[in-house]
């Protein structure tokens, strides 16, 4: 569905995106994860024909994003960071005009709008002026607009930013269901670790405009960090013995071991009769920390509190 070759975007001196090679197959759900300013949105904006690359190329849905913009636009859906519906418009009107923008006939656009209003639970607010809707309602309206022409490929730019936890969970559920029901290929950017972890089966980590890792959340964690098993013992001598047997490091009466498969190691170490066993599984933040020496989470926390 997507294939980029050395995709690059410079803004004056800044290399926002720096030689990205990305391939996404039909039916995948891919999350682009990275801190603010990493180049996720810029990548997305090039793939959706909003901005031309400085160099390199990208094919989306079989067409070149620079030379065949119209063909690309006809085949993709895009849900940007802002609100797609005009504030002085009514939700239903915007959905219908969005359908017309994709060349649908008035009757078909109306029917499709009704369908989406129903499935996204917008029935009560669809005839209200957009400016009176809540953040969560507007976001669902955005999703409906992005889906009006039932695209095979959907791009979402930070879809859940600014939503409260309940609306965020709601939105994620819609996206996952959309994929399950229609097999839509989905590419989304996010800086929420949990979102990438729970939704995507493929996470592309971007930092300073480059892809620094690309795999399933599970494999990223085991390859770059691994599980940590912490065994507690009653005495340091027992801990010493265990550390030797399991090739771990002793800290006081504790033994710490890093492993690809923490639970299995924990089960095996039960034979050494530890007083306690703890398996610490890594997060995607640990992966990012290992790869870059920086944490994604600090930034997320700052954003939430501001």
């Amino acid at each position, binding site marked *: 569905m997507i294939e980029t070759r050395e995709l690059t975007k410079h803004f004056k001196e800044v290399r926002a995106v720096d030689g990205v090679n990305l391939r996404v197959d039909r039916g995948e759900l891919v999350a682009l994860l990275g801190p603010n300013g990493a180049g996720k949105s810029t990548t997305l904006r090039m793939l959706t*024909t*909003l*901005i031309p690359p400085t160099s390199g190329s990208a094919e989306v849905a079989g067409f070149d994003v620079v030379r065949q913009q*119209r063909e690309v636009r006809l085949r993709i859906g895009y849900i940007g960071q802002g609100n797609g519906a005009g504030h002085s418009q009514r939700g239903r009107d*915007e959905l219908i005009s969005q359908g*017309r923008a994709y060349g649908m006939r008035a009757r078909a656009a109306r029917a499709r709008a009704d369908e989406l209003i129903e499935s996204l639970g917008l029935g009560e607010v669809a005839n209200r002026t957009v400016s009176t809707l809540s953040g969560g309602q507007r976001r669902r309206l*955005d999703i409906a607009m992005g889906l009006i022409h039932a695209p095979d490929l959907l791009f979402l730019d930070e879809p859940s930013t600014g939503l409260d936890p309940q609306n965020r969970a709601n939105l994620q559920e819609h996206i996952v269901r959309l994929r399950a029901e229609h097999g839509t290929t989905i590419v989304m950017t996010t800086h929420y670790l949990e979102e990438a972890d729970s939704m995507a089966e493929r996470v592309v980590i971007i930092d300073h405009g480059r892809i620094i890792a690309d795999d399933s959340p599970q494999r990223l964690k085991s390859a770059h960090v691994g599980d940590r098993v912490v065994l507690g013992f009653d005495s340091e001598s027992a801990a010493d013995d265990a550390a030797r047997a399991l090739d771990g490091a002793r800290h006081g009466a504790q033994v710490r071991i890093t492993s690809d498969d923490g639970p299995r190691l924990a089960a095996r170490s039960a034979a050494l009769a530890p007083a306690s066993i703890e398996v610490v599984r890594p997060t995607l933040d640990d992966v990012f920390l290992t790869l870059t020496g920086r944490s994604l989470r600090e930034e997320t926390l700052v954003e939430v509190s501001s």
Partner: protein
Amino acid sequence: MTSLVTDVGVVFSRELRPVVRDPFSVIFSMIQPLFFLGLFAPLLPDDSSLQWFVPGVIVMSCLFGSSMTGSNLLFEMQTGSHERMLVTPLRRPALLIGRALKEIVPMLLQAVLIVAVCIPFGFELHLAGALLGLLILAAFCVGLGALSYTLALLSKNRDWLFWTVQQTLLFPLLLLAGVLLPIENGPGWLQALSRANPMTYVVNAERALFDGDVLARTTLWGLIAAAFVGAAGLITGVRTMQRSE
């Protein structure tokens, strides 16, 4: 399959929809020119003042409305709905032309309102001339609207820039077109500046046409000036829209 025309239709009807849904919002915004009629026209010297003044006020309200319309686009650029439309297959020229064409509708409503209010006070309506006058005005306000959208695209997230330029240009254009007071009595340099203002020719044409003087030279000049503003506005607007990222 869509064409440029259907694309323009989609954008045009989208722009118009809030007006249709909530006509009162537009009617309230139309009250301003009535102040000029009620509070300024009585100060004008001779008896025929209304016949002379009203066409100018119609052009003025068209100038005010159309030159501000870019602020709607500016707002949609900030909220994200312009971006959403840029990702659709709508042809880029349609995104501008559809918006600019919509300016005709409030202009017509406004003209009808102003004329209707003035007839009881002795304003004479010459229908044929008035209709041709509105046609000229349509071309003029489409051009102004397109230029206002151009300014919005160039201002991009800098509201102050849009409003500074719009406000700075508004009054020189208005005063130099001789809308409020005749230019003929002014000094030579002022008259020269006035002749360089396309709006002057539109105002003169409207005055002649609303007075029933259709086959006049002023009509032709007004037509040429309005067509020039319309074409120049659309060309710059479409180019800017195609270039904007």
